[in-house]
């Protein structure tokens, strides 16, 4: 059962443009929604995260928008740069089990063209 659905699978953006990646979740028990960035041959690295008590969080060029009623959240990368070219994963975790293991989306491969 895929609990976190991510789209698009791949994305090509021009330098300076806005990259938008979307995720939808099914389990209303999820209460923590991070985004991870992964470069080839490396492990995922935390980029930014949000909790459902806020609708938006911004850190530098990266913004998460969260829609609790629609069970959707998205990552916006403003002024996209070639160095942002990587695979991005959304994820979700639930508090009720006490385990807080992350469930990941399937990933979006972003290519920023110079």
């Amino acid at each position, binding site marked *: 059962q895929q609990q976190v659905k991510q789209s698009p699978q791949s994305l090509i953006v021009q330098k300076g443009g806005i990259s938008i990646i979307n995720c939808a979740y099914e389990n209303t028990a999820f209460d923590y929604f991070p985004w991870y960035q992964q470069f080839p041959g490396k492990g995922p690295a935390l980029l930014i995260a949000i909790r459902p008590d806020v609708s938006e969080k911004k850190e530098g060029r990266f913004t998460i928008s969260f829609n609790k009623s629609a069970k959707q959240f998205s990552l916006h990368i403003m002024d996209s740069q070639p160095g942002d070219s990587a695979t991005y994963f959304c994820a979700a975790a639930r508090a009720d089990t006490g385990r807080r*293991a992350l469930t990941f989306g399937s990933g979006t491969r972003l290519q920023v063209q110079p």
Partner: protein
Amino acid sequence: EAEVAQSPRYKITEKSQAVAFWCDPISGHATLYWYRQILGQGPELLVQFQDESVVDDSQLPKDRFSAERLKGVDSTLKIQPAELGDSAMYLCATREQGTSPLHFGNGTRLTVT
């Protein structure tokens, strides 16, 4: 900055052989996870430890996979016997506690021939 250390970085093994991966967490990180990442997909949880205890191994194929964290510090994941479908990146991730950020190692890339 402290890192999660994993070894080996790459492992090639033949089908039916045994293979083991090692993870050394960031000092003080009590919670440790092993994830498997098939090429082109997101990481999938295999097992979670809290100190030396297994918290969740519901997704671990226990007929061939085993994991241990004997002293609550470093951890080993073993596959015996390896199958072709086990080819993937095996990632270790650790966190200090509860809701603190999760830190991943750079993984072990396993190829089973």
